[in-house]
């Protein structure tokens, strides 16, 4: 099929418009789009078997599917929830690392003349606290958007709340990275702190990217 004829295909136009409009985790979005493409292809096949020409069958299939205005809100709602779950999972899995990093920072060089200064220890306590609260909220989100959602409606603002929880956790991870990097320069046992800093940096990268995507999804209209 040439590029020109592909552009003229109502099914491909519909799928392209849907792909451009929807935002969410790549794997889940791809799966949803693939299923919708399959459904359209099956509908077109059913119509062509009845003797309809391809172009007319494709137009008919798209019409039966519903307009983008009808379909996008419910698809985006699912993708936004999927993105919120993705972000919550990232926070729930990485926040304990942040606590572990600070535990390492606190205990390392314990017997050495140099120890973490008081300010750094206070910072550590606060960042670990932020990480714990974020992890608890993330776990609650996973429950609220999973099987609990059979009985309790999902609050409309939950994806936005998850997005900002993830953002806060990612900022805490960035601060932890800087602090651990500084501490590793001063500490005797620097490889351990450098490793903890790298772990915090990696956690920050994962959570920040997911939280950014979640903020974007949460702003989109959905039913």
């Amino acid at each position, binding site marked *: 099929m040439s590029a020109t004829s592909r552009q003229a295909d109502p099914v491909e136009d519909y799928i392209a418009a849907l792909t451009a409009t929807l935002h969410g985790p790549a794997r*889940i979005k791809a*799966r*949803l789009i*693939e*299923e*919708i493409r*399959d*459904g359209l292809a*099956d*509908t077109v096949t*059913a119509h062509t078997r009845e003797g309809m020409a391809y172009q007319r069958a494709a137009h008919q299939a798209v019409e*039966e*599917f*519903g307009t983008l205005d*009808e*379909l996008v809100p*419910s*698809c985006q*709602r*699912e993708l936004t*929830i*999927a993105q919120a779950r993705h972000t919550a999972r990232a926070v729930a899995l990485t926040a304990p690392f942040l606590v572990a990093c600070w535990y390492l920072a606190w205990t390392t060089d314990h017997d050495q003349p140099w120890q973490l200064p008081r300010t750094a220890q206070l910072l550590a306590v606060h960042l670990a606290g932020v990480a714990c609260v974020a992890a608890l909220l993330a776990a609650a989100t996973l429950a609220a*958007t*999973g*099987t609990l*959602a*059979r009985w309790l409606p999902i609050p409309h603002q939950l994806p936005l709340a998850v997005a900002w929880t993830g953002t806060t956790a990612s900022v805490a991870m960035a601060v932890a990275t800087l602090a651990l990097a500084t501490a590793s320069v001063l500490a005797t046992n620097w490889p351990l702190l450098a490793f903890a800093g790298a772990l915090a940096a990696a956690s920050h990268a994962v959570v920040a990217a997911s939280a950014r995507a979640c903020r974007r999804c949460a702003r989109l209209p959905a039913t």
Partner: protein
Amino acid sequence: MRADMVRGHLDGLLLAVLEPGPLHGYAIIAAVQHRSRGALELRTGTIYPALNRLERLGLLSSSWQSSGERRRRCYELTDAGRHTLAGERTAWSEFTTAIGSVLNPAAPPGFAT
């Protein structure tokens, strides 16, 4: 039957057509239309996000299955889905009885005050 009248019952319809066994998206649409003898006007695209939602809730499970040269995502009821379907049937029966008693002018004997 208008799409907005069907919308509130979409979950029950999808669970019911999946009760006999696993089906892929288009087969689910066809089953709903066949069972309703074409009376239900579904915007067929709307069933795909609904299937994803029911799977997230643990009422359906899905897997990719080969059908000729193509792979299709097939859905089937979980135990929780069967339980929910039973609840939907009970709720629907109570609803139709209640609405029927209001719409039907023949009041049950002894009901008049």
